[in-house]
């Protein structure tokens, strides 16, 4: 269970949010929406532990995520709106390295299979700089296919994706939720996801 | 009195330039710092519209 208690966070002198509390159980989805600059990305960066809140605490199964550190990172996958894709590396290299960084080493076959499933057949050996925006996004999202983590924190995973890819991501999310995973995501697009419960958080 | 005359005091046994050069710059630094520090504080007070008494 991921719990946020009385979170407060500000950028410079600008207060993004305060007294924000929620908790997400296993199998639950939290959709975060709000206008640009309302602090969606900031909230996700707090939840994954990149930033520290000014006030309040974030708990994973009752323990502060800052104290858990690497134990929390082992069960959590964060996909920022920057995908961590290197222009000079091929799709396969990109995927294998980002998986290795997440502590989940995969071999070339697994990487190739994942990229194939996400619709990049024949593009595996191309350097990322020749891929389109949507294809690069898919390379980043391919991590979700091979990861074993429970908590997914996704920042705008659907941008630049076409309908088939969006559908594919929806299935992926549903699969993770049905296994008892937790998903927190921001999105501008409407998406129907069947989850045990889904909460909607609107930041203003 | 240690010094025979004012000019002896100023000449510092022939080292006047160096002694007063050091002390002069020290004075300049200290006065300059005080000025800058107070200016920063006063400007802030004005910007924020504070009218607290102890605004040195």
């Amino acid at each position: 269970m991921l719990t946020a208690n009385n979170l407060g966070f500000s950028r410079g002198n600008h207060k993004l949010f305060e007294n924000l509390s929620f908790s997400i159980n296993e199998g639950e989805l939290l959709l975060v929406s709000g206008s640009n600059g309302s602090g969606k990305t900031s909230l996700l960066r707090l939840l994954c532990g990149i930033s520290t809140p000014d006030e309040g605490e974030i708990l994973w199964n009752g323990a502060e995520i800052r104290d858990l550190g690497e134990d929390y990172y082992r069960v959590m996958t964060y996909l920022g709106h920057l995908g961590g894709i290197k222009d000079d590396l091929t799709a396969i290299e990109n995927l294998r390295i980002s998986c290795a960084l997440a502590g989940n080493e995969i071999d070339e076959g697994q990487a190739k299979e994942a990229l194939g499933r996400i619709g990049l057949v024949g593009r595996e050996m191309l350097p990322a700089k020749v891929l389109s925006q949507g294809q690069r996004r898919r390379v980043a999202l391919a991590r979700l296919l091979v990861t074993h983590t429970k908590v997914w924190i996704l920042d705008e995973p659907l941008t630049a994706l076409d309908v088939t890819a969006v559908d594919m991501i929806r299935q992926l999310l549903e699969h993770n939720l049905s296994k008892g995973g937790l998903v927190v995501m921001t999105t501008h697009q409407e998406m129907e996801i069947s989850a045990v419960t889904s909460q909607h958080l609107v930041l203003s | 009195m240690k010094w025979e005359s004012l000019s002896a005091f100023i000449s510092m046994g022939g080292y006047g330039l160096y002694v007063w050069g050091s002390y002069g710059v020290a004075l300049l630094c200290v006065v300059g710092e005080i000025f800058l520090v107070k200016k920063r504080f006063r400007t802030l007070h004005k910007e924020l519209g504070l009218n607290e008494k102890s605004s040195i």
Partner: protein
Amino acid sequence: MILWIIKRDLLLAMRRRADVLTTLFFFIIVVSLFPLGVGPEMNTLRIMAPGIVWVAALLASMLALGRMFSGDYTDGTLEQMLLSPVSLSALVMGKAIAHWLITGVPLVLIAPVLGIQYDLPAESLMVLTLSLLMGTPVLSLIGAIGAALTLGLRGGGVLVSLLVLPLYVPVLIFGAGAVEASAAGLGFEAHFSLLGAFLLVSVVCSPWATAASLRISMG
């Protein structure tokens, strides 16, 4: 895991060979410019050679510091590193090793050739190369702290030199000092053991400080 990082950074460097060569050429040019500035008098040059080569090495390795984290920062890889189940200090260590392999080792290899320009005797050439071999990793490790602190700041490139160059002083003194001591017929073992001590201290402390700085800069 460290190996993954080193392998990746080397791979990236291989795909962008121009960057590596720029640093190397910078080093060569700086060293070659000095005689034009101070005159071709060989005796003077021989005395100045260790200092010149070392200062040029300092500048060259600093020049490449900006690239150490900025690429990973702009494409989001750094966020993933922060969230890796592997300790960030270990990843940082990998990055520093890669930085040294890419910028430090070429300098070490080319140094004897540049020393010949200054008519250094064979023993001095050897000591110079060895001192660079021990000193350049320290430069990469200390530099990593500066690079992490100035991440994403405007004017970060100049700022990093301001932060890091004063910290390079001991390495410069003992690196260049070793060559001078050997040229003067004095022992240079003491210099080398001190360089070794600096290396040890920076291996222990710097990845930790760099990791802390990265978390601060990203948070």
